[in-house]
């Protein structure tokens, strides 16, 4: 049987051959953690470069092209610059919370990354409440934003943080409910299970009309979750300067910055897993080559990431009350109606399956 289990099993038995079983567990955990940290950094670097290139192409510019071929090392240069910068802060800041805030964001996005099946069995831990775990973990991030804005003792940062609190709490409902609509189809919260179900057609095809509605709501709410334009109330540079991270510099700022990009990846990855069959290839064309699962997963995820970048570089920003109107008066009622519609479709067996 093909699968990435071969590799992990090999590593496991190799470590076990010269170590006691108890130590093996710890060693393997550290290895997994290191692997995810590496993935985190690489994704962050790549997404920043991608954002800059995409933005440039939208704006009649060339984008970074000086450091390395195609500007490949531009983000590495930026990271080095941020590392070497002095960590400034406000005098009357609540120092403990001020220093703590970035970790909330970075830990929440790092933990969320752990449950994604990048390919068959290529997953750190496959819990049976996968989707629930993702929704729960991703809402920890907002605590970091609120703390950062509040503790830095800056009015602009405070306004940004309060906006973020309002926005994230509202849009979490829509993210949760639109995913719940799809859960009706799969009957399981486990991510690997959700992908198994999609072997007879991606969920967006299986659930057709309500699934497409759910996907649109998910993308809107997901963009709002990550605080990106057109929902970037939190930063809103023409209104608040830099928003909640006004007083952060150097690596602390970079944590916020990186977390935003990883969150964007996570939103796109959830979308891929739940709507577009995760690592499954279209029509099963490469089912015999399991390692291409990673390729398909990344292709789909980055297509969704591109979609979010497209939003960002074309749409103006909403006003804060319009943002809440959109959620509470439009998305939420449509969402509730959509769940009922999906239930009826499943009840009448109107789903499309190959």
């Amino acid at each position: 049987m093909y699968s990435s289990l071969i590799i992990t099993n090999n590593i496991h038995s190799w470590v076990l051959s010269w170590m006691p079983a108890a130590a093996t567990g710890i060693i393997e955990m550290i290895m997994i953690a290191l692997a995810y940290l590496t993935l985190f950094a690489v994704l962050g670097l790549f997404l920043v470069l991608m954002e800059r290139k995409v933005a440039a192409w939208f704006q009649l510019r060339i984008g970074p092209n000086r450091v390395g071929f195609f500007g490949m090392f531009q983000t590495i240069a930026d990271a080095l610059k941020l590392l070497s910068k002095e960590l400034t802060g406000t005098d009357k800041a609540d120092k403990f919370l001020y220093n703590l805030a970035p970790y909330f964001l970075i830990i929440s996005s790092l933990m969320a990354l752990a449950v994604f099946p990048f390919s068959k069995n290529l997953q750190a831990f496959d819990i049976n409440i996968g989707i629930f775990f993702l929704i729960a973990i991703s809402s920890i991030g907002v605590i970091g934003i609120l703390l950062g804005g509040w503790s830095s003792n800056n009015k602009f940062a405070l306004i940004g943080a309060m906006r973020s609190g309002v926005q994230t709490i509202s849009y979490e409902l829509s993210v949760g409910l639109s995913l719940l609509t799809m859960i009706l189809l799969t009957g399981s919260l486990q991510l690997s299970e959700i992908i198994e179900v999609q072997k007879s057609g991606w969920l967006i095809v299986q659930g057709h009309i309500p699934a497409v509605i759910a996907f649109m709501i998910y993308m809107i709410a997901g963009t709002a979750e990550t605080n990106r334009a057109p929902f970037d109330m939190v930063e809103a540079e023409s209104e608040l300067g830099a928003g909640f991270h006004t007083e952060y510099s150097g690596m602390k700022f970079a944590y916020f910055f990186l977390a935003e990009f990883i969150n964007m990846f996570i939103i796109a990855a959830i979308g891929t897993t739940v709507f577009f069959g995760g690592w499954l290839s279209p029509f099963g064309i490469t089912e015999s080559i399991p390692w291409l699962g990673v390729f398909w997963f990344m292709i789909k995820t980055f297509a969704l990431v591109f979609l979010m970048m497209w939003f960002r570089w074309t749409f103006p920003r909403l006003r804060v009350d319009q943002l809440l109107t959109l959620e509470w008066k439009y998305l939420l009622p449509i969402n509730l109606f959509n769940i009922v519609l999906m239930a009826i479709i499943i009840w009448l067996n109107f789903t499309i399956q190959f």
Partner: protein
Amino acid sequence: METDTINNSFKSEEYFINMGPQHPATHGVLRLLLTIDGEIIKKVEPDLGYIHRSIEKMCERDSYQQIVHLTDRMDYLSSHINNEAVCLAVENALEIEVPERVKVIRTIIDELTRISSHTLWWGVMGMDVGALTSYFYGFRDRELINDIFEETCGARLTMNYNIPGGLMQDIHPNFVKRVKEFIAHFKTKLPEYDKLLTGNIIFQKRTKGVGVLSKEDAIAFGASGPVARGSGYSCDVRKYHPYSALDKITFNEALHTEGDSYARYLVRIQEMWESISIIEQLIDNIPEGDFKVATKAVIKLPKGEYYQKVETARGELGVYIISTGGKNPHRMKFRSPGLSNLSLLNHITVGGKIGDLVATMATIDIVVPDIDR
């Protein structure tokens, strides 16, 4: 008693924040003292003077030829038009009749300046409401106009081309060709502007019904230019007091009656179309002749008071000269459109959100050096 306690515990407190002098939305060094309650604006107090260079006082020191080199630094986005105002005032005082060629070239340059100012405004407007891409689109087209100006008068921003008595030098041989190329190019690009911003539902939501200015208030506050015309106040100086070659051409005054930010936006978009039409009417008919009339090396205005107003990209610019017969003006006063338009800000933004303030400020289109002088 009990309700009082409840009301007190939920009472919101007003607080104030400094918007500027270094803030992305204030376009330069304007400081706004905002009194806000949560997100709702209670009071806006513009605090001026951060870039005051006492240009009016400096004018009293300079000769009339030198003054022209100061006025382009007031509203640097309509520098040609500022300079033309001074030149017209001096020429009227001296009773000089400039050649037809000068008049036509001045009008063409004015309208090019207007387009270049409005394209920059359009880009920045998009940026202020959160769509960064429009900034680069606006600058793409503005750069072409800057190229034309650079070829003819050697500068790209603070251009000095008008002098009392005519122009500093003749237009570049390429001028007519390049202006025609630009017009052809810009006619295809202006619909793109509509596609990117005008038709966007978020943009319309952000600007419609925001910062509403009634026609009465527009007149009372002395508003002019697109700000007043967005409220239905027909006040185009080009229409009512035509100067240079403007009496020979036909154009429509862009007017909208809603008075909100969206109306002001539409007025400027329409003005760009009108400017194109004005240039098209003139560009093929530039008469032959001299590009200036000879003036004395030291211009001395006869004793008296002189006033000339022109329509800059921002509104009505008035130049008021008191001369005692010497080579310098005794007193020089500019009636700048920016200052009176800015005075509206508190009136039309109170009660809105911070986002509304930014959108309204973008449509008022302030240039801080014009306000502070």
